[in-house]
């Protein structure tokens, strides 16, 4: 999966990929103060494509808000919502709008699930529907944080660590391997990283084709940009 940190004030974005074996569960957001936890489990292709490249995607998200007593289990097939002991199951083929005291849900048929948790976070999960008979690919999910400003300063995780901004400078622009993708040096967290100007897709507005977002790509699973390395974010269970 590709991770994107958009920084509109700087009119710039940072991006990186994290790949691991299918089935790995990564922690994306953890805020001990508000009791928010977002974990995602990866899936692979149906079988290895002829080019031998193993692609991974997020196929399941587990979201918990302990203080509000909310738990969401979102897979490419269905959405399970538990709140205060009550359980509701929705299918992606449904269209639904639920407004509660602590949580609002808006399910757009076969497309997106928008979740607003009171006084904490708002996010969207996108369903990427792949042609059913595709020999290799299968449906997968995307996770977009829309509003995170109410989360505490201690929020962390692969995405969460960036919720309060990040300082960096880019210099020494030079030709890269590909003509349209120059390399540069990024000074970040006291280190100098080799980064490449590239594009990643934002699928919120066009779930089929996506829109290219120019970004500084950090190589090697985001090493140097993220705290620690990708394996530090692997967790044993979805909840």
């Amino acid at each position, binding site marked *: 999966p*590709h991770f994107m940190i958009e920084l509109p004030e700087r009119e710039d974005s940072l991006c990186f*990929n994290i790949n691991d074996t299918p089935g790995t569960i990564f922690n994306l957001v953890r805020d001990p103060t508000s009791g928010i936890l977002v974990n995602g489990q990866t899936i692979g292709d149906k079988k290895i494509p002829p080019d031998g490249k193993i692609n991974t995607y*997020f196929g399941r998200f587990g979201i918990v808000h302990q203080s509000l007593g909310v738990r969401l289990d979102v897979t490419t097939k269905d959405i399970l919502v538990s709140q205060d002991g009550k359980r509701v199951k929705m299918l992606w083929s449904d269209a639904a709008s639920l407004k509660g005291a602590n949580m609002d849900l808006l399910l757009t048929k076969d497309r997106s699930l928008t979740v607003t948790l009171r006084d904490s976070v708002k996010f969207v999960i996108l369903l990427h529907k792949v042609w059913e008979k595709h020999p290799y690919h299968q449906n997968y999910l995307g996770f977009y*944080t829309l509003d995170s400003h109410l989360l505490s300063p201690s929020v962390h995780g692969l995405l969460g660590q960036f919720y309060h901004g990040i300082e960096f400078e880019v210099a020494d622009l030079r030709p890269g391997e590909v003509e349209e993708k120059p390399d540069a040096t990024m000074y970040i967290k006291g280190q100098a990283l080799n980064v490449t100007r590239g594009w990643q897709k*934002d699928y919120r507005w066009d779930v089929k084709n*996506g829109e290219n*977002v120019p970004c500084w790509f950090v190589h090697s699973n985001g090493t140097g940009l993220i705290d620690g390395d990708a394996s530090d974010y692997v967790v044993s269970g979805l909840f």
Partner: protein
Amino acid sequence: IPNAMVEVYSVTVDCTVASRFAHTVMTSSAINKANASQEIFFEVEMPKTAFITNFSMEIEGQIYVGEVKEKEKAKKQYEKAVSSGQTAGLVKVSGRKMEKFSVSVNIAANSNVTFVLTYQELLQRKLGQYEILTRVKPKQLVQNFQIEVDIYEPQGIAFVDAYGTFLSNELLPLVEKTVTDNKAHISFSPTLEQQRKCPGCDGTLIDGDFIVKYDVNRATTLGDIQIVNGYFVHFFAPPDLPRVPKNVVFVIDRSGSMGGTKMQQTREALLEILKDLHMEDYFALIPFDHEITPWKNSLMKATEENVAEAMKYVRRINDNGGTNINDAVLRAVKMLINDRKNNNVPERNLDMIILLTDGMPNSGESHLPRIQENVRGAIDGNMSLFCLGFGNDVDYSFLDVMAKQNKGVARRIYEASDATLQLQGFYEEVSSPLLSEVDLRYPDNAVEYVTTNHFRQLFNGSEIVVAGRLSDNDINNFLVEVFANGFEEDFQVQGQASAMDWDVIYPDQEYIFGDFTERMWAYLTIQQLLEKSKSGPSEEKENNTAKALDLSLQYSFVTPLTSMVVTKPETEDGPGSPLIADKLTEEQRQQAEKTSFYHRTHAHYPPVYASAPTYFVDGD
């Protein structure tokens, strides 16, 4: 830039066309009325088919001139500039037809600056006319605003139209047009008051395109051959030729990515195109996704019944699945070959395949060079392949090379509300071949360095242009022959080319813009070398690139191989940093559009999210 402390007091556009070769000079003068120095911007747009030839800035009597350099060398200066925190790069994409050139300089208090940009282009005849497009956006009322266009066409001018997208009923009469037999003059020069949007307000009405369209007389079948200053140019577009009927196979991408508007527009365009088929034409439809499902197994005559049936079929084409371009095109080739073998189609009909696709092949053969190789091998020079690349995600260079390898051309179709019209327009351009295998011959002992003189087709409303150098300055005439395949019979014509004396044709015109025939030859040669450098064996590619670079430098053209380096004046902070004007390639344009599309669409988001940062994770 609207700024009360900067007064733009003069904006002039001066365009001179001599035998289709247009030379445009855009001049803008401004004064910094502030008490302190400030940045003044010069931003103009020019057609993407034009090459910049000159740029200068005059600041307080000192002139700073741009210098055309090899791109790689210029790049080194550019990198230095970037690493020292300066910005560079003056040319950017602007819409489908234009490129934007922008530069800014720091001007001292109460000082003047004059910017002058010059570019040249060979006007292309499309659908029976040439078009001179000038974009004007002065952003404020200008004391001296003037557009002047002079056209010199020795063949004689058939018609001239001039209009502007910004011209109201009040401004329209201000466009002055004088046309004599072989000369036309168009001018537009509104006063300060006439430019004003409303009485008493500062806004200007002048914002948009000023367009001049014209055509020349075509008296002879041989065309018009002009010899000037040791170079010749041959314009070939014979009048009154019957069109050649065609066998056309439409190969239509209906993969999942074509879903929605693109599929709808494709259906609409196909319905119109089918209506335009002539009774003598034969046609086939091969929609494809990961599966290839031809409408019929062979080409059908374009009878009223067959067209009606095809239209019914087209209305039912829906998007689904992957993209198998390789097998779809090969199927079309096979169909044309079989139908020829079985005498299902008339012998003299011209064979063509029109491929419409919006994306990368991801089913069947997906390695692009192998697809090109397969298609070239199958077609083997026996038919033309025209490629339409729909939208931003298509690999245009792949289609462009594949079309050129197979006697065709490629065209980008931009995703917009007028995509249906773009598709129809392209079809209109290529659907009426008048001649095929056009061979223009000149005596070897009289001319040299001749540009491409063999053309696969001549389409109705277009024109073939060949230029070359006379091997001896004393040659004043030589024999010209044209051979081609026409409808029912071969086309053959010959005649004598004679040197022209421009002083006699235009006695009052002392000087047009110098050696335009030679520059036209250089422009054409560079364009053709650049095309050739995209395909073929690598040694040939390198050779063609080197030749194109040499000519670009020799004639001071900013092409994709060269850059213009402009050195800014020194400032209090130190020496001026270089600025670079480049020529963009079609691929760079496409990439830029993708990026600007992203920013444009963001403008429509709800404000709370437009400025809020977004953190996300999704599939690659």
